[in-house]
């Protein structure tokens, strides 16, 4: 399981990096989204994987912390997801405004060779 997820994270990160190295800003947006999936999964995985152990406790049962996954990375990732969305939105808007002003969607604000 760990290996599969690790490969998945790697492929997401690699695809994301390839895209953020591309010249067109739409590619970069998609790349950043893929990269943020990878990063979120990576942080989440730092709490180790476990199935059927959601960190929702039952106060009537005696407390045994070993039967729950680590809630902290989950809390971190939860806000990261929302902020990631906000950043995607901001970047998209910067993209379209920049394109409106410069007339190109190249990340440098001008076509290569100009």
């Amino acid at each position, binding site marked *: 399981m760990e290996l599969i997820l690790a490969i*998945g994270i790697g492929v997401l990160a690699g695809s994301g990096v390839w895209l953020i190295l591309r*010249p067109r800003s739409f590619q970069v947006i998609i790349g950043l989204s893929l990269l943020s999936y990878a990063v979120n999964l990576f942080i989440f*995985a730092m709490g180790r994987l476990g199935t059927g152990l959601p960190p929702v406790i039952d106060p009537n049962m005696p407390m045994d912390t070993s039967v729950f996954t680590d809630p902290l990375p989950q809390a971190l990732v939860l806000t990261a997801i929302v902020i990631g969305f906000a950043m995607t939105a901001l970047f998209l808007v910067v993209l379209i405004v920049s394109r409106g002003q410069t007339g190109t969607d190249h990340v440098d604000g001008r076509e290569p060779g100009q």
Partner: protein
Amino acid sequence: MEKGIFLVVIVGLPFLAALVVALGRFTRSTSSWAALAVALVGLAITLSFYPSVLNGDVVRLVIPWVPTIGLDLIFRMDGFTWLFTTLVTGIGALIMLYARYYMSPDDPVQRFFAFLLAFMGSMLGVVLSGNVIQLVVFWEITSLFSFLLIGYWYHNAAARDGARMALTITASGGLCLMAGMLLLGHIVGSYDLDVILGSRDQIISNDLYNITLGLILIGALTKSAQFPFQFWLPNAMTAPTPVSAYLHSATMVKLGVFLLVLLWPVMAGTDIWFWVVGSAGLITLLLGAYSAIFQQDLKGLLAYSTISHLGLITVLIGISSPLGLVAAIFHIVNHATFKASLFMAAGIIDHETGTRDMRKLSGLFRFMPITATAAMVASAAMAGVPLLNGFLSKEMFFAEAVETHTGSLLDLSLPYVATLASLFAVVYSVRFIAGVFFGPDPVDLPKTPHEPPRWMRVPIEFLVLLCLIVGIIPGITIGPFLHTAVYSVLGAETPYYSLAIWHGFNEPLIMSIIALVGGVLLYFAIRNLARQMDGPPLVRYLKGQRMFERMMVAISWKWARSLENLLGTRKLQTQIAIMLITVLAAGVAVTTRFDWVGFEFPTVESDPIFALIWTAGVICAIGAAYQAKYHRLVALVLMSGAGLVTVLTFVWFSAPDLAITQLLVEVVTTVLILLGLRWMPQRKPDIYGQVIMPASVLIRRGRDLLIAIGVGLATTTIAYFVMTRELGNTIATYFLELAYPEGGGRNVVNVILVDFRGFDTFGEIVVVAIVALSVFALLRRFRPAPESMERPAQQQRLIEIYGRGDDVGSTGGARYMPIAAVIMHWMFPVIIVLAAYLFFRGHDAPGGGFAAGIAMSIAFLLQYMAGGTRWVEERLRILPVRWIAFGLLVALATGIGSWVFGYPFLTSFFQYTEVPYIGRVPTASALLFDLGVFSLVVGATVLMLIAIAHQSIRRPKKRAGDDDTSEAQAETELSQGDA
């Protein structure tokens, strides 16, 4: 230590008053009365402290700030700082009164008095700081307000330049001072001033003494306008005259010498002190006095005179003898009284005649006899005429100059230089008196001169009276206060000194006579020359100001540009590639040090379904990467596929909260990017077509591919090795154990978000709010590229068939996707219920404010998608900015609420409430906080999406230069609505 609280009042009150004056609606009179009252209250408190600082006693108040690193807010007052505080508040009061008449009602006077008050507060903060770091902070605040006050008339270019120069010099000096103080604290092991003052041997003998002293001296010398930093002060004279009188003669420029006196007991007496402080002071003394003779601007003359007198004080401090220190403290007070009154007199002359040019002014005695008399007495004090206070401290200076201290050249030349500088002082004082007040009637003045209003003269008269009283009966007026101040600095070392006017016919008296007689003679010899000169002979070629400007140009323009040429690149891709390669190389370098001994690969267990899910995920990711250039929609779909795989992974590995949130965010992200697609340029088919790709492109793509593969491999490796390692004992245990008993929630993730780490969450929602508002702001003035202005071809076809989708009239069959639209409308309440459900169960089960907020925004979005923007907005005003504001306020109020009960910010309160028919319901204040999160997320998401959506129904302005301007009508009422 309840007395110490009043020290905080002295410092805090001016700041508070500044805020009130700045934000309230006050006239010139009310703001000046308020300022005057604040200064008088400060003065009264200070005076009442006098008994507590006698005999070297110190009043202290310690407020713990960051005790773990030894930083406390300390306010202290001893005899010397008492004297200084009295000076700042006393002269402050007079200045406030004077400024009431000086400032024109047309000026923004509220701003003026607010700045002046804030300056006074920061000045008092420096003086009363018992912690050297705190001292530097207030020190820099004084520089800042000095900047704002010099540039008060910011429409005047000279004022802006003067302000900028003053800030650059004094604030850089302040930074050096900061470094010096940090070193000093390092040497002593404490930032507490009283501890530092008790560690002379430790400081003097430390290897870091020289560098520490050097840094502190840069701070002090820049602030007090000493050579070679003196040139900022004359340029600061573009400030309104009350500012020049207060900041740039009486108080702020004294801070440098104040600091030197303060640290004198622990740092003075070494060779380097003597040489650096002594020679800087001596050069300044002579140079300032010489330059003052040849000024044509009244305030310029006074500015150079101030520089010169500060130089005198600096020399006295540099001599490192106790008697010199007595004279220095005495002269600080004397100079403040006569120079402040002279500046105010110059201000009156300027105010009543309309000019400060000494070539135009003449014979004013007949027009304003009272002001003239006062100004003449003050300038006599400046020249050091007997029976005035300036004479006394100058005699003390001469007496010290004659004494031999080290026998060095500097020391031996001191009496001659002192006499010469004093002679120059007489020349410029006489020039001021004779040139301005006597001689023929002035011609061509912009205004007819007359006496100023009664109360405008009072501050000057009061100060001149002080000059006289102190000058005639020093022993019983200033004597005890001076003794208290000196004793608090020198303690047992306090020397015997006499404040008598007559010490017999001795060397200092001879020097005074030479200076007075020689000065008057020299004035008559060169008076015509001085009027014609456009600056001091010889010295004017040595322009510190020009050097400064050249340096500024070099740093901020030439060097910056060459650095940019060297390091900057306008190619983002190259920058990112370099960064990634560096990180990869660093990672590899670390990995080579890994110890493989005893490492075993863990056994691989696998689940076929999970493997299948991720096979899809991998295909989606690579597909999105491949398609993003030419097939944006496909890439978007594939990206969402990868997102769904992520969601499934969260579900699989026990993270229901994440799964819910990610799923909902997927929806809004997709809608968002779909809306953005409309504004992207049409991508032409491969530009290289059938031609073979150029090698450079192949190399670039190959490099990027290698980097991408490298990053992927590295991430996989790290993730794999970490995941297969046992997780040690982490903070998770703490959260899991305390979530229910202390946070009152069963969903630990949610309890962490809204309770344990509530402050972080608060910061994060603030970020989201800022982003949403930035998006909105960016789009308000959005101009699309010309080729995107037309509706896309697909949309045009739909409009042909169905009519305009967002037309108000188009209903029923004419509408696009009517059945889907009806379902979407019906979903509105359903999704709201879902959002409420997610929200209320959040504390105990997966859900919570973030997820609920996004769900709620989806409810709104669906309405937009189904009905079109106009249809929705005719029926429903969403006002997302209000949602954001409400969310922030609720979250903030919840946090502050816990203060009311005496707990730290955002402490959660929790209990069960018995609700009829429903039973025990958990009630936590965290739920309220979560409500804030919810509302903010709804507002932010809706604001961003609607802002983009609005662009499509807005008929954009064509840009100037476009061929067809007939359609150039802006239709922006929707985007400028309340959204």
